[in-house]
């Protein structure tokens, strides 16, 4: 039942996304601009860790893409609530978890597709990395997108006023991006900033993808990255499902 319902809803949302090329390609624009106009500045700089500048920047941009893209996923549910589509579906016997997973899987697929485009664009810029490492990177993008999209839907359902949603997400996403060292590795940071950044779960993800891009798959950094990514996703989907179950229980 859950699998069938999830596949059904994934199909519906995927078709809606495919009908909107804007939605498909717009998300890749910001990281692409960083790649083109920021990436070349780093090529000669000492970045404090192994790997050339592209092997350090591209993993950061991949996660930036997931971070900003998936955090705003909740907007679509605010619209669906407004149209009455969300309640219409909740009146049917469809699995509550499928209502969440159908969307989240569409989001993960969309952001992995954008990640592929970004990596393809990075190759002529000078990126060289092992294929396995690149695939591992896509895996992290998928987990990060799924986790953040789940949290974004939960937040969108909790907020009483939809106009609070955009500012709330921006306020959370900006420090998350800066503190996880997506643009420049935290190896460059002074001690206090390095400590603070270790409190940010995304830091472990980006460090792990950077390891993968230089062909290191069995290091502690990779292990921490995988554990944090899986833990974050499990937590986020749990929070999301709870919120979907009780949706509508608040006033308004």
């Amino acid at each position, binding site marked *: 039942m859950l699998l069938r*319902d999830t596949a*059904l809803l994934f199909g519906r949302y995927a078709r809606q996304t495919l009908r909107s090329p804007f939605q498909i390609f717009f998300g890749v624009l910001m990281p692409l601009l960083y790649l083109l106009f920021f990436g070349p500045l780093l090529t000669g700089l000492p970045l404090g860790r192994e790997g050339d500048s592209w092997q350090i920047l591209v993993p950061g941009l991949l996660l930036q893409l997931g971070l900003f893209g998936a955090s705003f996923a909740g907007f679509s549910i605010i619209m669906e609530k407004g*149209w009455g589509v969300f309640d*219409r579906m909740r*009146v*049917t*016997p469809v699995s509550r978890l499928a209502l969440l997973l159908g969307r989240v899987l569409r989001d993960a697929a969309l952001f992995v597709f954008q990640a592929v485009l970004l990596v393809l664009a990075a190759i002529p810029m000078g990126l060289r990395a092992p294929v396995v490492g690149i695939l591992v990177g896509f895996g992290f993008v998928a987990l990060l997108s799924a986790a953040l999209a789940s949290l974004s839907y939960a937040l969108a359902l909790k907020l009483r006023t939809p106009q609070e949603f955009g500012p709330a997400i921006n306020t959370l996403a900006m420090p998350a991006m800066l503190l996880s060292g997506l643009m420049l590795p935290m190896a460059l940071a002074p001690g206090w900033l390095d400590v603070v950044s270790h409190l940010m779960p995304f830091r472990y993800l980006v460090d792990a993808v950077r390891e993968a891009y230089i062909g290191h798959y069995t290091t502690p950094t990779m292990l921490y990255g995988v554990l944090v990514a899986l833990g974050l996703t499990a937590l986020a989907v749990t929070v999301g499902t709870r919120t979907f179950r009780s949706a*509508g229980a608040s*006033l308004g």
Partner: protein
Amino acid sequence: MPIISTAGLARTFTGRNGPVEAVRGIDLTVRPGEILGLLGPNGAGKTTTLRMLTTLLPPTGGTATVAGHDLVENPAAVRRHIGYVAQSGGLDPQETVRSELVTQARLYGQDRAGAAARAEELAADLGLTELLDRRTPALSGGQRRRLDLAMGLTHRPEVLFLDEPTTGLDPGSRTDLWALVRRLRDEHGTTVVLTTHYLDEVDALADRLVIVDKGTVVAEDSPAGLKAAHGATTLQEAFLAVTGRGPAPADTTPVAV
């Protein structure tokens, strides 16, 4: 055996300025095949009551059985037997009429072929066949309402809940919708619970009406019985007598505007 029975059904919201008792305790019994009109002033708790009976909102007090299943213990079973059309409808502007009907049937467990057949059948039944491949924003108000209704009827529910089904419709579309509701009951024995502000609507359609005010049931009778009980010639007079909201005296100014 009633198809809906509630005892003390209540819902309190936690608002910013303390608890808000939207529904204080509704006792309601609906017989199978009955058309029940739920009336009441704005804010009386009609929509909140419907949202509880349709499993969208968990009650904070009381008990209810809908279509043979306990609302709180087994909402999933209730969902399989009821249909609900919200006041604002529930159509996605990105979708076509056909895809909405097919998805809805699939959400109720039909396989692909069954869902496609059911979509055709519903469209034929509700005069939507010509419109199947249009996107929903291209429909007129009356056509949208028929599609909303078709969505609620996808799984041939035993109980259909309609929240202000004719608000915003022109007189012709309203009469069509009334005929459709009567046909559902006469041909399929469907129980219909509808809320409305139009007193002529319940007068023409409902076997029985329940007036809700400030979150409780304040009157319950057939339209003729209610008029007789209050010595009223119109349902409007009876309604105003029950809810105590007569025409405002000319010399009073509103407290707040």
